[in-house]
């Protein structure tokens, strides 16, 4: 299946008072149409920055290297106007907190139609019709009435549905969802995930789902990429990666999840130490200070991401967890 989006060697450096700091340190991945591509990792691992780079939403002074081929064009080399045509129309984004990602003083209808009219040139009536249809698709009751309402009149879950409707308004081929369920109740989460799943099946929408919640990953992502300190440490089909993690970090993340059936006094496992700040990343494999399987060369050689079978890629030469048949 030909990839819709192919990212190679993406490296993002951001300006700080002390100079440029590399936040994303060379990542590769492919996303196919209709596929849910999951990016997991802790805060500061660079997940959000890497997708912002795709949309050209980085602050002034950011330096981006690598390529991101979408539809035969390199997203990272597009000029401003071309980028604007891609944003919202070909690739759309849903943000984490629907309370703050919807404009509090504009009606839902306006927020749905303004880019519709801008990108597709629809008339006001046509745009409103499409907006109402969109709201129905994301299961907002009384779609027509909702068009004239304001975000604060809706619950969190409904607002996120509206945000999804806004993102999908122009019929994009890829949707980036940055922690779309993190700010929502667990019960509401499931509804949003089901919605995303249905939508992507309907229109072959590629979804890049960023979340630190492995449970969410396992339920919706076809493909999982685990990031640490700006690099990909492991990636592959979700079931494989989560079922049998091979990178010590992935294993650590999974082990840290409390087991629902473990006895009460089982201590919570955590990975010792903390992720390094972008300014202070260790040499060699960035995870090595916290890794119990680290050997001498881990502090010096940056591991490459290589194909290791069962569709998986791994950035760990030690590969301590592989199960040999």
């Amino acid at each position, binding site marked *: 299946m030909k990839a819709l989006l192919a990212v190679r060697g993406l490296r993002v450096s951001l300006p700080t008072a002390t100079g440029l700091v590399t936040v994303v340190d060379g990542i590769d991945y492919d996303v196919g149409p209709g596929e849910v591509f999951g990016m997991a990792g802790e805060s500061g691992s660079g997940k959000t920055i890497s997708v912002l780079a795709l949309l050209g*939403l980085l602050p002034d002074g950011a330096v981006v290297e690598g390529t991101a081929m979408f539809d035969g064009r390199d997203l990272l080399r597009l000029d401003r106007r071309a980028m604007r045509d891609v944003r*919202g129309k070909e690739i759309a984004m849903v943000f984490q907190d629907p309370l703050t990602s919807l404009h*509090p*003083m*504009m009606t839902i*209808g306006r927020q749905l139609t303004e880019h519709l009219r801008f990108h597709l040139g629809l008339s006001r009536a046509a745009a409103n019709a499409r907006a*109402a249809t969109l709201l129905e698709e994301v299961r907002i009751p009384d779609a*027509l009435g909702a068009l004239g309402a304001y975000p604060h009149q809706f619950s969190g879950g409904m607002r996120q549905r509206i945000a999804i409707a806004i993102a999908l308004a122009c019929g994009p081929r890829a949707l980036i969802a940055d922690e779309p369920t993190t700010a929502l109740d667990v019960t509401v989460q499931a509804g949003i995930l089901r919605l995303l799943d249905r939508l992507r099946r309907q229109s072959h929408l590629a979804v890049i789902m960023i979340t630190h919640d492995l449970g969410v990953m396992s339920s919706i992502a076809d493909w999982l990429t685990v990031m640490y300190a700006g690099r990909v440490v492991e990636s592959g089909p979700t079931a494989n990666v989560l079922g049998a993690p091979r990178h010590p970090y992935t294993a650590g993340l999974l082990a840290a999840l409390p087991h629902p059936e473990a006895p009460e006094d089982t201590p919570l496992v955590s990975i010792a130490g903390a992720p390094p700040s972008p300014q202070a990343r260790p040499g060699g494999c960035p995870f090595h200070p916290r890794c119990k399987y680290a050997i001498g060369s881990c502090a010096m050689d940056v591991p490459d991401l290589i194909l290791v079978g069962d569709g998986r890629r791994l950035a760990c030469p030690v590969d301590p967890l592989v199960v040999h048949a």
Partner: protein
Amino acid sequence: MTSPASAANRQLVPGRRLRLPSRNFLRFLGRRLAALVLLGLGITFVAFVLTELVPGDPAAANLGQRAIGDPAAVRAFREHYGLDKPLPIQYGLYLQHLASGDLGESEQSHRPVRTDLSEFVPATAELALTSILIALALGITLGVIAAVRRNTLTDQVLRVISLGGISMPTFWLGLVALYVFFFQLGWVPGSSRLDPGLLPAHHVTGLYTIDALLAGQLDVFGDALHHLILPACVLAAYNVGLLTRFTRSSVLEVINNDYVQAARAKGLPERTVILRHVLRAALPPIITVGGLAFANVMTGTVLVESIFSWPGIGQYAFHSATTLDLPAIMGVSLFVAVVYIVVNFLVDVLYGVVDPRIRVT
């Protein structure tokens, strides 16, 4: 999903019922209205106390020469104001007079203060409105620029300019502006509202510019505008400084919000993002400054109208102050204060109109 036919059959008016004012907002407005009335009473009390503080015999001061030769007039005066009665009754009489619109009689013009005021209000209204419009246009624009170009040289320059605006003595600015632009450069006329040869258009609002437009007399309109421009700009200076600062901080509060980034992610051009998304969200706090801006303009008119020979209530207040015409001073103060609290109330209403979170449940 739905067929195109059914889609076309639907009424496509976004729901109106969800946009009616909430009861909370109406209750809030009701409270503000009550506060307005109470405040109105309070300021009458202040004005009354101040008039009582004046040393000397009000009858003698007010009637001047007549007081000596005409005891009947003195008696009538004392009767009217209840000067022989206890203070609370005097206050009651005072309120009664106010309710019927009687603000006393000017010692200078010997006309009712109310008549004087009604003659001079339109001129000041025209000046004040123009000045506020200029200040809003310039101040908000500069504030947005300063915010968008934050921490660049432009921003620092604008900071100094805005500080300069609020540091300037308005009366001095008026003097210097008049000297430079009228006396030296001759770009604008130096006084009054129209050239001596022109007559104002038919009186509809009392604002020469509007009336001229309504009557289609473009030459009068042009001349009135020509006379208006310098004093309006002088009056606007302080408010431009104030609004630039306020707009800047308000925009900065808003510009990092997620919904701004979300708007960019929709592919909207940056100008639309700034003007439609950022500015709208930044507007409510700026509106609250509106009342303050009005007070500043009022302050300015008192100081500046006489310099430009502008026949408004500011000049009236100035002359009353210099001649110590107490009824006139008190009358003007009361009038301006009442207008001010009404303006503040309107600002509250406007705030709710602009921010739907307050207005709608």
